[in-house]
């Protein structure tokens, strides 16, 4: 950690036996003023970090409420939905490369089966659809996980509240909104922040599925750091360290900010 901060104000030439040279804030200036790729990567990561919780959590909450309403075989469904989070990103990445395959992938197959064949496309080949496609993959992975946490929180709510809310049908939905969600608020906030942080750090899925392409369309800050450090022939660890420092500060600041605004009274506790 401290080494990284130290590196961020130096250039560090790997080809010259790790010689360090002090450059002050030069890296930071360069990143913030003239590095277009960094800004694209930052935008992608930020979109991912904001959109993912907005998709994952409502979906997870809906699923949790469904199972909580004593659907038959709820335990089986819970077990199945939780499974994707146990797989590694490379495994998930390969499976979804196949799902998004233009000719025979599940995604296009489903569209054609529904008569929406016109929408079938090479999902990862266009900058417009690649990022949403990857976001859907993380939703696939994490919705079940979030659902399980919410289900546990739901179970902790005194039964009378929910019975009252669910029993009387249509009006019950409004009660779910007004009773259950406020009670789940601390859990939802925690999950949202974790989801946000997780997506801001996203590396592996992108590395396996698109390598940041097409046209930087799925580049994240994390993949850019690794590329700058080990793939570009700049052979300088200082510059990517500076990116890491900037990004860490942003994640940290935004998380604390989120916690403050969403959480109000509650403290982050597990």
């Amino acid at each position, binding site marked *: 950690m401290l080494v990284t901060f130290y590196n961020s104000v130096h250039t560090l030439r790997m080809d010259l036996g790790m010689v360090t040279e002090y450059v002050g804030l030069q890296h930071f200036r360069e990143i913030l003023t003239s590095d277009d790729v960094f800004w694209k990567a930052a935008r992608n990561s930020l979109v991912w970090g904001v959109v993912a919780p907005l998709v994952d959590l409502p979906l997870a909450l809906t699923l949790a409420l469904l199972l909580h309403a004593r659907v038959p075989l709820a335990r089986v469904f819970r077990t199945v939905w939780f*499974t994707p989070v*146990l797989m*590694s990103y490379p495994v998930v990445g390969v499976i979804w490369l196949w799902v998004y395959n233009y000719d025979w992938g599940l995604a296009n197959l489903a569209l054609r089966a529904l008569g929406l064949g016109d929408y079938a496309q090479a999902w990862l080949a266009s900058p417009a659809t690649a990022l949403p496609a990857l976001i859907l993959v993380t939703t696939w992975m994490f*919705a079940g996980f979030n659902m399980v946490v919410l289900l546990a929180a739901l179970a902790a709510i005194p039964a009378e509240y929910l019975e009252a809310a*669910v029993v009387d049908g249509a009006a019950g939905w409004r009660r779910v909104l007004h009773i259950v969600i406020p009670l789940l608020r601390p859990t939802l906030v925690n*999950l949202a922040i974790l989801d946000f942080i997780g997506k801001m*750090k996203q590396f592996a899925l992108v590395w396996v599925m698109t390598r940041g392409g097409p046209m930087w369309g799925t580049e994240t800050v994390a993949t850019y750091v690794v590329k700058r450090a080990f793939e570009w022939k700049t052979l300088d*660890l200082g510059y990517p360290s500076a990116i890491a420092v900037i990004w860490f500060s942003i994640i940290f600041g935004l998380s604390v900010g989120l916690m403050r605004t969403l959480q109000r009274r509650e403290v982050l506790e597990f």
Partner: protein
Amino acid sequence: MRRPLRRLLLVPVLLYTAFSAGPYVWTAMMSLRTTDEIYRSHYGLPIPAHWDKYARAWNEFGYATYFRNSTIVSVTSVVLVTLLGAMAGFAFGRRRYHFPLREPLFLLIFLSVMFPPQIMLLALFQILIQYRLFNSLTGLVLVYTVTELPLTIYLLRAFFAQIPTELEEAARIDGCNDWTIFWRVMFPMALPAVATTVILNFIYFWNEFLYAVVFITQQKIRTLPLAIQFLVSDQYQDVGMLATGLMIATLPVLVLYLFLSEWFVKGMTAGAIKG
């Protein structure tokens, strides 16, 4: 709730189940079919089932090596992290142990739970090079141990802190010293908590990709996630064999999960703090 309404709820539940399980079931079916069969029809049932593909992947495509590497790294790291984490958690959790800088040290540990891996990555890279541990499984084990230790200490400390002091006093009267109190009394009591951290850490190590991809460049010490990434680019056409490889990489965890799903859920959600 009334019955017909509950049946209606099954519709979205089944739809989501198809979305959730579909891709993996499809992969499982492809893992039992040859690539030729797959290219003829991508959604055929695995009849006849080519179980021998698993043996071929294992012997001819190097999965035996990758599996061994992953096992060595994950198991060693879990053992180290658990032992160190339990002892440190015990020391931090029991009020009786006053050592210098106790509170600042714990704060530091708590903060490092939140560090994103990227910020450690380049510094660790440099350190590994310095100590000639780059490109070695030992180096990877050390990195894994160090990066997961804070969270493990944090989780176990909370557990040790709530064990009543009377137990400790009783053990002391029976002639135990700190060391035997820990191993004979406290550690066995903490086993449920330890089990959750073992599961959490094992899954993390088994699936870890970022550190592995940066710190390991030699083929023969690749772990499974790393191997899969390389096989995808080298043998993209050989869909059937890749599917078999994916199953080999995931089945051990998933089979354990089937039998111990409650423990897995507990372990994974305990790690929710890490995201």
